[in-house]
């Protein structure tokens, strides 16, 4: 009952909105090249289902690898930063620079440098730049926030550096690392879409390219179908990580009391 209770209101709301959408198009006579009716979007999806699913797989692959690299490098740099302050001081300004420079502005450069024959790799790098920062900052904050008394305890028992990391700092930082990962997953998807837009025709066959191509043909229904798939991927990533968070933290973290 509780499960139904929590899914029912958003589901009802969605159906009502779709109904209003259909009705508005009939009442105000809106042409489908401006705003297609929901049933037309469904039709477009069915018509292009093979290309759309293939394109989804391309975008999802780019997002996935960008996210994995963001996790590995974000946590890795956070560990280095919290161990060696001078490395943090030396590198941090450049990390921030990389973060604040609009990625869309450096994307063409990256594609040129990596090479047009390696577009897939260039796209992953662009999406990684977008996704990497929240994992880094959240991990650094988490690793730093460990109770000093617990550090004293580990010192008292002559814990080696790796023991302190594995038994104390990483588990203590896990909730914050997962928060960073959640933000980063959504950003990886945004990065992948931006990268595909920049890469342009012929080089990329992901959902973003489908959107451009449908737009050029004024096939707005197909455009919406791609858009819906992007949302589905984003929602899927978010809930996968929420599930992972629940699995890892539910037994001990106060937020799951």
């Amino acid at each position, binding site marked *: 009952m509780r499960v139904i209770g929590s899914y029912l209101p958003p589901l009802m709301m969605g159906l009502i909105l779709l109904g209003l959408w259909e009705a508005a198009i009939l009442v105000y006579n809106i042409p489908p090249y401006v705003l297609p009716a929901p049933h037309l979007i469904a039709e477009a999806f069915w018509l292009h289902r093979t290309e759309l699913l293939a394109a989804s797989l391309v975008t999802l692959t780019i997002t996935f690898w960008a996210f994995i690299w963001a996790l590995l490098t974000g946590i890795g740099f956070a560990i280095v930063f919290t161990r060696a302050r001078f490395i943090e001081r030396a590198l941090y300004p450049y990390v921030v620079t990389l973060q604040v420079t609009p990625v869309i502005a450096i994307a063409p450069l990256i594609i040129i440098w990596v090479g047009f024959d390696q577009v897939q790799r260039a796209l992953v790098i662009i999406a990684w730049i977008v996704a990497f920062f929240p994992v880094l900052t959240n991990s650094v904050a988490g690793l730093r926030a460990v109770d000093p008394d617990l550090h004293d305890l580990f010192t*008292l028992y002559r814990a080696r550096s790796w023991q302190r990391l594995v038994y104390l700092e990483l588990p203590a930082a896990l909730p914050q690392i997962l928060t960073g990962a959640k933000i980063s997953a959504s950003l990886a998807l945004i990065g992948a879409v931006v990268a595909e837009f920049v890469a342009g025709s012929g080089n990329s066959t992901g959902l973003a390219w489908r959107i451009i191509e449908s737009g050029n043909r004024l096939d707005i229904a197909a455009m919406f179908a791609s858009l819906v798939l992007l949302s589905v991927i984003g929602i899927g990533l978010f809930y996968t990580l929420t599930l992972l968070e629940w699995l890892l933290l539910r037994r001990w973290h106060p937020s799951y009391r």
Partner: protein
Amino acid sequence: MSTLIGLEEVRYSYTPDRPVIGPLSLQIKQGDITAVLGPSGCGKSTLLRLIAALRPPSGGTIRYEQPVQFGFVFQHPTLLDWRSARDNVALPLLLNRRKNNPSAQKETGQGLSAAAPNAGQIADAWLDRMGLRDSADQHPRALSGGMQMRVSIARAMAAQPNCLLFDEPFAALDELTRFDLNRMVRSVVRQEHLTALFVTHSVQESVFLADRVLILPKHAGPIIADLTISGPAQRNDEWRADPLFLEQTQAISAILREAG
């Protein structure tokens, strides 16, 4: 009894112009149960950390006349929230495996109990002794404040220390729980022939627990008073109602009031 730890002219300051402790000289004898009293902010907690070599003193020397293995009970339970009570108690054995548990040098990668077969048993034995037999598999958040503190004491005991340091551990607990834990601490320390240093701001707690009470001054300086408590070896709640208990608490309170 022989001296275990000797402090000579020990000083500590965060900045050169703001001394916190000392110069302070003091002998801690083996088997002593010593309470350290003093106004808040007088550096009692810092003194414990200096003795445990968790901070270097700014001046003076601390000599360990015999090998010392410390157990530290902090102001808060300071448990690892993600580990069960048993795995928290076994933590010192896991960290110090080569030293404490020569039979289990090889990491099997199958978690704690597999890696160190004795650690889990030692932890269970101590949890049992603290009256927590049924809570070994619980995570700290499922335990009350008093139970968490018992886990923390079991953890301090698991590494077989010969000197226990307590940093005002029961201040946040209700009175009955505190009385319980006071009794338990005294009996464990005596049964195991340990040396104990107990920082507290409660005069009653100091007279109940200790054989010796040290009073630190509000501002850095030598010890104000070094008192021997006369009382029975085995203490229970009757000791709290004893005229001798009341007399000594009043005398100590008077000294503390004077110290500001």
